[in-house]
């Protein structure tokens, strides 16, 4: 099977009636890592949540396809089963549902009802993934994200990614709120899952995670559009010169361009 391809084309999205994405185009293929950077409030999480089908975000134009299939026509759970994954910037707390039970349910949702994942097999895989991410095994029996620290929630998102093995994963600020060691552990976990069958879209504000997961492309999102794309060096330029540089360099050109 050919590797996955997520194609976002001229995407326009409104939140509560306000247009946030104003024609965003981006393609991620299996084996690639794309970093998406940009100032606060420019629409990065909006992009991520729209890919997954968050009910608050209304698509007013453009398209998203996965291997040519219309993603926007699918419900969120079908998108996930088709291979999309979103590590959320602010994962929900789900009271009363243990992480292990939740993950087993999620895995079984991908399988034939007559062939649920075997408990031992599941446990082994879970234990292994927890070891990779240095997560205490006790977390498996805690309620999903409830009372987890910010960093623990982020690790839990990557844990889910390792178990669910998506084809396209969007990681929304998976490095925020993590200490230096945790960034390395999480990044190594992400890096280890790289391969031709996984395309990654990595939303971040910082260069440091990109030191471990070297991106193929870096995109800068500004005011709901990709305004600049380049190689890994673009992230380094940003790190040293800041977004002010992007504003000065590019915004007049964007604003001046015909609608």
């Amino acid at each position: 099977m050919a590797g996955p391809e997520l194609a976002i084309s001229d995407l326009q999205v409104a939140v509560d009636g306000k247009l946030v994405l104003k024609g965003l185009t981006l393609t991620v293929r299996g084996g690639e890592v794309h970093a998406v950077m940009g100032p606060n409030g420019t629409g990065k999480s909006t992009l991520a949540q729209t890919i997954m089908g968050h009910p608050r975000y209304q698509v007013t134009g453009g398209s998203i396809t996965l291997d040519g299939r219309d993603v926007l026509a699918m419900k969120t759970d079908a998108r996930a089963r088709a291979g999309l994954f979103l590590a959320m910037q602010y994962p929900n707390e789900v009271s009363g549902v243990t992480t292990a039970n939740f993950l087993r349910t999620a895995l079984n949702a991908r399988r034939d009802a007559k062939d649920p994942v075997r408990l031992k097999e599941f446990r082994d895989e879970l234990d292994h993934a927890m070891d990779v991410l240095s997560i205490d095994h006790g977390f498996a029996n805690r309620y999903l994200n409830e009372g987890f620290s910010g960093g623990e929630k982020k690790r839990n998102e990557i844990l889910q990614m390792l178990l669910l093995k998506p084809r396209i994963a969007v990681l929304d600020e998976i490095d925020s709120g993590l200490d230096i060691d945790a960034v390395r552990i999480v990044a190594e976990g992400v890096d280890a899952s790289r391969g031709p069958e996984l395309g990654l879209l990595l939303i971040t504000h910082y260069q440091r995670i990109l030191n471990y997961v070297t991106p193929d492309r870096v995109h800068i999102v500004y005011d709901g559009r990709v305004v600049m794309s380049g190689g890994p060096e673009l992230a380094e330029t940003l790190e040293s010169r800041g977004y002010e540089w992007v504003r000065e360099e590019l915004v007049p050109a964007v604003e001046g361009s015909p609608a």
Partner: protein
Amino acid sequence: MSRPELLTLPDEPTLLADRRRAARELYEALPVPTRPRTPLKARRLEAIPYREPASANPNEVPAALRSAPESAGHVVLSNGHVVSCEMKEPARRAGVKLLSLADAAQQEANLIAKHLGSLVAADTDRYTAANAAFWRDGVLLVVPRGVALAEPVTIVHWVGAAAAGIFPRTLIVADADSSIAVVETYLGDPADSHRVLVSATTEVVAGPASHVSVSALQQLPPGAEAFLRRRGRAQHDARIDWATAEFGAALSVAGHHTDLAESGASTTSHTVTFGSAAQHFDYDAEVVHIGPHTTSDMRARGVMSGRSRSIFTGLSEIRQGARRTDARQKEETLMLSPDARADAIPSLLIDDNDVFAAHAASAGPVDELALYYLASRGIPRADAIDLLVRGFLGPVVERIALPAVQDRIWQAIESKLQEERGRGTL
């Protein structure tokens, strides 16, 4: 042709016969109760021929319910009559008594005279009076001083296909320093929708420093109109824990009431309700702090689907002199359907200033953002609701003393969820 009604039972000790006659008079005098949110008159309960209490039909009781391997003693009632009563050796050796009330009336006349009806007063309402007037049998459990049973005593109340009126009573007397768990289940064939009135009472006399845990699972058949009254009195340092689950019946007017009569007494209560279709639940949980340094913690969680209706009235009363008491209540309801309705009415009645009391009630639909999060991992909506409902009820279900009963409650939850899925409402 109807048989002539028996006012008293043959061989009944005079005292009990007198009480029964008095209860009968009360019953005749009391009107159908008026409950603010439960229109009882409209249910036409009086059209049910319940005044002729049903006779036993042991063959109807499913074999799986006739024994309970993990219990210290097991009693099976069919239509309000004890049809089997067994106690295991360790309990017997420790001097525990487990008797049918019919036998106890003869063998334990003094205990019965002293305690039966001492807590659930016949004049509570018409259907409690009916219980006191029409009861045929029930269970007496006596735990001697200092005896602690590791395994619970289980009581099964089976409602048969031909029964119109069922009036069992349970009396638990725990002597000082004893410890006992009792699990009562009320059930019948879920496919049987004939109308039947069930009025049951359970009384708990908790002696000094005793610990009594009472779990009750109400899973009556869909035509049942139930009145379940439970009341306990905790003496010095005694503790009564209630865990009640309301799943079945068309109507259930139920509740538990605890008197913390002396210093150091305490009680906890956990109530779980799952309403579906047009079920109606009206539950009262009450605690009265009489002694100082008494504590109570009352929690209820309900899931409401279909057009079901629930009322949960929590009352914590703190009498004057009950200083340094601690009374808490928390009621939470998960609404699965916009057509369901739930009222949680927590209240505090405080007559002493040196106390801590708190209450909270909340109700709301399933958390859509949590559903989205679960969906983003590939879990379909119905399965996600399943997970959330189980997660919501779990902490309360876990308070039920017996794993086998917990399993039955989980099965009940599962079948409720399937019922809703079948209707396409989830």
